[in-house]
């Protein structure tokens, strides 16, 4: 049932077809950018950049490597953004897509801060707070209609694949085995399983992927403890006040009658 993207960094050539295809399919406007001494651009994800490639030059005993890393929503199973969304605008579909129903989004931005991968972005104004959250939704409309996500479909060297998550995990494991010692699969277990799996053959830190991503304890505290406690406290107080009213009123009536 659950789907997943497999990103094989060892095949990726950073042609950035995915970056452009994402904008094309999702009707995202271009950013104004600068060359700051790198091929990498835009500098960061934004409300109109849902996917970008990261370029990293690494030199070690094995010579020079030019690493490319996909940067977009990981569609976590244990998704901080979903947990934290006060209006349930960010939600998880059966296929594992972390979807944002922008109608429901109030732009609070809690998801932005709750994401261990720093993915969700807000548009709009910081001052008025009127905003919506934007991020990769794994081309939900395409997936719902049996098509691959735009980035996967466009990938020339076949670095991206899409399918049933268990198939993608199996394929990734096979690829890792084929690549040998340095290779590893990222995303199978992280956050109860990401729906974007990475095959890399350089250390995660070289790819700037968080080694043990986790949803901040604050998010758990807030969502699983504080909120229910809040309802409880308010419930108790409200109940107490109601009781008080009934009792006090009854007494007053009694007292009056007594007079």
């Amino acid at each position: 049932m659950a789907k997943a993207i497999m990103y094989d960094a060892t095949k990726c050539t950073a042609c950035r077809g995915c970056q452009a295809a994402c904008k094309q399919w999702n009707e995202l406007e271009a950013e104004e950018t600068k060359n700051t001494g790198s091929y990498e651009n835009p500098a960061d994800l934004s409300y109109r950049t849902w996917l970008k490639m990261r370029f990293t030059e690494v030199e070690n005993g094995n010579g020079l490597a030019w690493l490319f890393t996909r940067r977009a929503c990981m569609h976590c199973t244990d998704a901080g953004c979903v947990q934290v969304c006060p209006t349930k605008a960010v939600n998880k579909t059966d296929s594992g897509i972390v979807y944002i129903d922008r109608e429901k989004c109030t732009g609070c931005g809690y998801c932005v801060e709750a994401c261990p991968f720093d993915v969700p972005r807000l548009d709009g104004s910081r001052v008025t707070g009127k905003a919506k959250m934007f991020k990769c939704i794994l081309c939900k409309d395409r997936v719902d209609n049996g098509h691959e996500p735009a980035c996967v479909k466009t990938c020339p060297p076949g670095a991206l694949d899409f399918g049933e998550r268990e198939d993608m995990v199996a394929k990734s494991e096979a690829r890792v085995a084929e690549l040998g010692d340095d290779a590893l699969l990222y995303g199978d277990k992280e956050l109860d399983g990401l729906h974007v799996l990475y095959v890399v053959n350089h250390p995660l830190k070289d790819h700037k992927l968080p080694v043990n991503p986790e949803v901040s304890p604050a998010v758990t505290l807030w969502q699983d403890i504080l909120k229910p406690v809040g309802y409880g406290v308010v419930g108790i107080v409200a109940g107490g006040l109601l009781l008080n009213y009934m009792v006090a009123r009854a007494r007053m009536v009694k007292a009056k009658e007594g007079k």
Partner: protein
Amino acid sequence: MTHHEVEKYSAGARWFHWTITAAALVLAITGLFLYVPAFSSVAEGGATRIVHRIAAVIFILAPLLFFLMKPGRSFHFIKEIFSWGKDDLAWLKAAPDYYFGGDEKKMPPQPDMNTGQKLWAVVAFFSALGFIFTGIFMWFLKDTLSAGVFDWMVIIHDLCFIVGGAMLLVHLYLGAIHPRMTESLKSMVKGKVSAEYAQSHHGKWYKEVAAREAAAKGTPGGQGKQQAH
């Protein structure tokens, strides 16, 4: 029963109170939309978030303005709410019976702010500080704060909401609904309470007021500013 009325709240204090109340209610309600998903449809489109911000500005500016205009009274108020004594303990002991049963006898006489009101004021004071501090961070420093710090800001904001909100409910109830607090709302609307009410609810204060009034009758201009005890 006399129809003599005494001034409980000055016009400035009343304006301040109602402004802050209005802002707080708006903040609480618009905040609630984010807290309770069932209400989230109201928040769609983000209009409530703008309202929340406007109210927040009022919520921050009103006390500042009041402080600037009436620094003395403000200091006095703050000093008063943090002055706790034996009477307060007695009040707290007697309060349940009083508020449920209406037994006044055990209630120690109270100054113009009774212990319950002080308690509310302290909670309101700290939650307001919490709201404002965390709110400003969440509003303006979202992009610079680290995700972890932001999460804690949200938690503190919400914690303030839970505690302050619960106390606000109590305050609203006592101020406007409780069968005995008949003149509390009036006092904040018109500024005056009947002498009777004042005597029953704020005995200590009434004594002072009465003394002052008597003195004033004898010596015009003798409205000595008195410190609360």
